[in-house]
């Protein structure tokens, strides 16, 4: 058994120094159906057992953070869309909140509500994608069809609201781009029961399936202390039984106004992560319903209008709960119309750093499931 903490630097001919050549080097990805994009793992396997793993990231590196420095504040929103391209609205929200905090801007009430509604719907859409791909990773080909139906419905609503299914570019600093369509209430009202049904169906078909349980339960469990030490956040951390959700721990936007639970797991294994995500979808549905009831009338656009903004020199750090975990945005302004520095703490990147801890000494088939349970988005990992 190799020391899992040892950093491997060489891999000549698939055999590491000081080991017997019983381990085989297996290069998984970037072109592999279940590495969720262009992630590459170099696995050392002893038969079917994973002995060691070395993640290679960066195939999708676009220098997003550096690009932000060359764009005006309003334009940066589009770059945040392209980081976590599954949870776009949540990303936009984090960036907008950072600039608003830096400038001390008030956001209109209605805009806050619409932001929360869209963010929570986006969380559901993201988790639905997760459920489907988790099913595929575990070898079930049907759940993805059920969950994508719900995801498509949410995206149709997003398209009606923002004009785009994925790269919305809808949140603005201090508000929204424009008000939602006149029939927004009707659209959401029609969507909600259907979406609840989709969530329930994709839950029922997979979560307590006996084979699925035996594949995921007790696979790479991790304790809460260790999870915190590794910097895990979001469902990864909550699956360990640690109740930490930024929406609750440090309520941003208007999350303190809603009644929702923070589902937690117990053992921190793959199945608990799955369960936590599924339960989060139900909680998000609750939040959307409450927000729709309370949705006030009024303006949604910022008092700034479309003027170029030049925040005073200074720096700010903001955190928010993304579908994948805690996103942090560190923004430095030097008083010009472009940010001096934008640093993102991407949740999937930080969660991915636990990969070696989670994968060593599991089965080869588990490596796929564990990677699926991390629920990474490569656009965000590589930025």
């Amino acid at each position: 058994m190799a020391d899992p903490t040892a950093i491997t630097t060489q891999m000549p001919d698939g055999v590491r120094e000081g080991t017997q050549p019983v381990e085989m080097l297996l290069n998984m990805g970037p072109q592999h159906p279940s590495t969720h994009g262009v992630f590459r793992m170099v696995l050392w396997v002893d038969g079917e057992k994973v002995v060691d793993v070395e993640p290679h990231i960066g195939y999708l590196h676009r220098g997003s953070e550096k690009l932000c420095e060359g764009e005006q504040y309003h334009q940066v929103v589009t770059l945040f869309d392209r980081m976590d391209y599954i949870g776009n609205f949540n990303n936009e929200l984090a960036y907008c909140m950072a600039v608003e905090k830096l400038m001390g801007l008030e956001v209109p009430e209605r805009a806050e509500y619409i932001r929360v509604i869209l963010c929570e719907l986006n969380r559901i859409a993201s988790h639905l994608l997760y459920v489907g791909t988790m099913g595929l990773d575990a070898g079930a080909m049907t759940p993805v069809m059920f969950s994508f139906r719900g995801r498509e419905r949410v995206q149709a609503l997003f398209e009606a609201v923002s004009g785009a299914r994925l790269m919305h570019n809808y949140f603005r600093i201090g508000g929204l781009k424009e008000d939602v369509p006149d029939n927004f209430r009707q659209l959401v009202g029609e969507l909600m029961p259907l979406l609840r049904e989709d969530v329930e169906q994709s839950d029922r078909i997979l979560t307590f399936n006996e084979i699925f349980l035996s594949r995921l339960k007790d696979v790479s469990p991790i304790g809460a202390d260790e999870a915190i030490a590794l910097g895990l956040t979001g469902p990864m951390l909550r699956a360990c039984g640690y109740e930490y959700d930024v929406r609750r721990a440090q309520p941003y936007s208007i999350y303190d106004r809603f009644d929702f639970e923070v589902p937690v797991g117990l053992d921190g294994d793959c199945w608990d992560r799955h369960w936590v995500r599924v339960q989060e979808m139900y909680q998000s549905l609750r939040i959307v319903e409450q927000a729709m009831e309370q949705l006030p009338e009024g303006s949604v656009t910022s008092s700034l209008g479309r003027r170029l903004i030049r925040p005073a020199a200074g720096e700010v750090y903001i955190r928010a709960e993304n579908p994948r975990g805690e996103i942090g945005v560190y923004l430095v302004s030097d008083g010009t119309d472009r940010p001096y520095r934008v640093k993102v703490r991407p949740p999937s990147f930080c969660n991915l750093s636990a990969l070696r801890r989670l994968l060593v000494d599991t089965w080869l088939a588990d490596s796929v499931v564990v990677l699926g349970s991390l629920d990474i988005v490569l656009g965000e990992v590589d930025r």
Partner: protein
Amino acid sequence: MNFLVDLAWSALGLAVMFAVLSVIVLSMTWLERKALGRLQLRYGPTRTGLFGLMQPIADAVKLIIKEDIIPEDSEKAIFWIAPVIVVVSAFVIWVTIPGGDSVVIRNLPLGLFYIIAFAVIGILGLVLAGWGSANKYGIMGGLRSAAQLISYEIPVVLVAAAVAILAQSLDMREIVAQQSSYPYLLVLPLGFAVFFVAGLAEVGRTPFDIYHAESEVVGGPFVEYSGAHWSVFFLAEYINTFAIAALTTLLFLGGWGGPALPDVVWFLFKTYAVVLVVFWVRGTFPRLRIDQLMAFAWKVMVPLSFYTVIIAAVYRFYGLPWWSLTIMSVAGLAVAGWIIYQRMTGPARRVAEVQRQLAARRAATGART
């Protein structure tokens, strides 16, 4: 002269068998697409002809005209011969599988033995394919297939032996004739269950599709194959699936026995029904892990198949009435099913219990808003 006539008839028979099986494979691919589509909220093929019936033809044409890539590092001879071994063993067993009382190429007195003996040879082809393609995923898939198929061969053989004990014959026609009053499903439900499940594993169907697991070993032994070579594997896989369904029909469902309709129609009807169940299972379940798969083979399937053989032998030896075998078989099935159910739903019940406790604790401490 007689010899030549015989040879000509055999060649003709084989040609007809090949043609019929090819048509069956085409129909199965269409059926699988349609059945899976219905399970998955979609239509399946619709654009190619009526109900997409021409889709298999289009697929076949596409596969054949595709470039056949042979990896440079591969063992060329092994790479070439492996699909041939797989497909020949898949076709050869059909020589003696009857589709009706007189619909058979050559009925052998030891037909069941012949079928099982030749079905094993396909494993060699899969291992060679994995090894010869010089791909690590291929090697893993090939070794997985060896482990899996050899393990699951044992329950298949033992249950077939139990059926042979019941029928006092290895002749497929004789076995079916013995079931004219009641199908063996009624006397050996346990044997039927073991045979069907082990048969699923034997042809690498979900939830036992370990050796070509798409999400782990990316097709396993077939990973480097393309074009016509790959389509040969594909052909063999579907013929094997159909063969397992046909054997299930012949050994347990009374073969071609049935009222009114011609025997071939009954045979095809029952076999396609079994095939549909295979597709249904595919659309429903995830995949087992390799250790779970092996544990299931040696801890569940093999003991159950031994039990099946023993009760069949006891029944024959003492000349008990036929319903006594049913009782023994159902008892075995019930006990095994209960244990498996408890084992498989154990985690689910534990999880549900824990979640209930968590919810209760939340309610006790007062739900925060």
